[in-house]
């Protein structure tokens, strides 16, 4: 085979290889991505029962919340005592034990709200 023939074939092969090379160098890098969704579990939807204790000034010192579903065990109960304007006048929280939970919790109330001013209890367990 003559040198000129070899050169011609070499050029053709080189051009083809360059085409493939151009495609091969088109690398795509992707940023990381992760996503998911989960339902927020509701551990108790049928309400609670409340009893409170007062000090000698008739301020609320503790509130016992009962009727808590066992599914709430391990959560944290937060309670706010509100007045007629829905403003918070006392609050507290309690950890619900993960094991041996009996369905109730006694929360110490900060703020010493006068019992006469307490119009509602607001509770959440998270």
């Amino acid at each position, binding site marked *: 085979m003559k040198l000129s023939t070899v050169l011609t074939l070499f050029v*053709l092969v080189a051009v083809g290889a360059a085409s493939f090379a151009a495609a091969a160098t088109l690398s*795509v890098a992707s940023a990381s*991505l992760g996503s*998911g969704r989960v339902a927020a579990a509701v551990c108790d939807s049928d309400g609670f029962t409340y009893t409170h204790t007062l000090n000698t000034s008739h301020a609320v010192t503790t509130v016992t919340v009962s009727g808590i579903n066992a599914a709430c065990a391990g959560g944290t109960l937060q309670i706010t005592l509100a007045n007629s304007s829905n403003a918070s006048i006392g609050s507290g929280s309690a950890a619900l034990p993960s094991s041996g939970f009996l369905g109730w919790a006694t929360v110490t109330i900060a703020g010493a709200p006068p019992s006469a001013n307490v119009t509602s209890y*607001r509770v*959440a367990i998270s």
Partner: protein
Amino acid sequence: MKSAFVGILRKKWILAAVIGAVVFSSAYAFAATLGVTSNSLGAGNSAVASCAASVTAAYTIAYDSTIPGYRVAGVNINNLTACSGKTITVDLTGASNVSLTEVTYTVLAADATAGNKTITVGGSINAASVTGVAVAIAG
């Protein structure tokens, strides 16, 4: 005439050149008939990775007299050790999977070191209205 042409073709370098010319002219012919103009385009494939295989969302709450009741004050996302610099998007969803609010946060190196971050949720999203949470981490 014919024998002369065959003689020329027998010269292999001319044959190779002719083949090359035919190939290129075919390529241009195909390109010409396509008649499509476009901006530059590159395509390829890449695996999509995530910095965390799974995360757990936990809520912090605060009393809100405008509800009145407890609002979602924050969402804590864990397993962020490998997510420094990534952007977290959290949607709290309610009935019919409607987004009640969406918050975004860029994970700081300190958050990655801690492994978790509580992202503040603004507004008065009633905790009782939240039925689900969607989380995406990108970047």
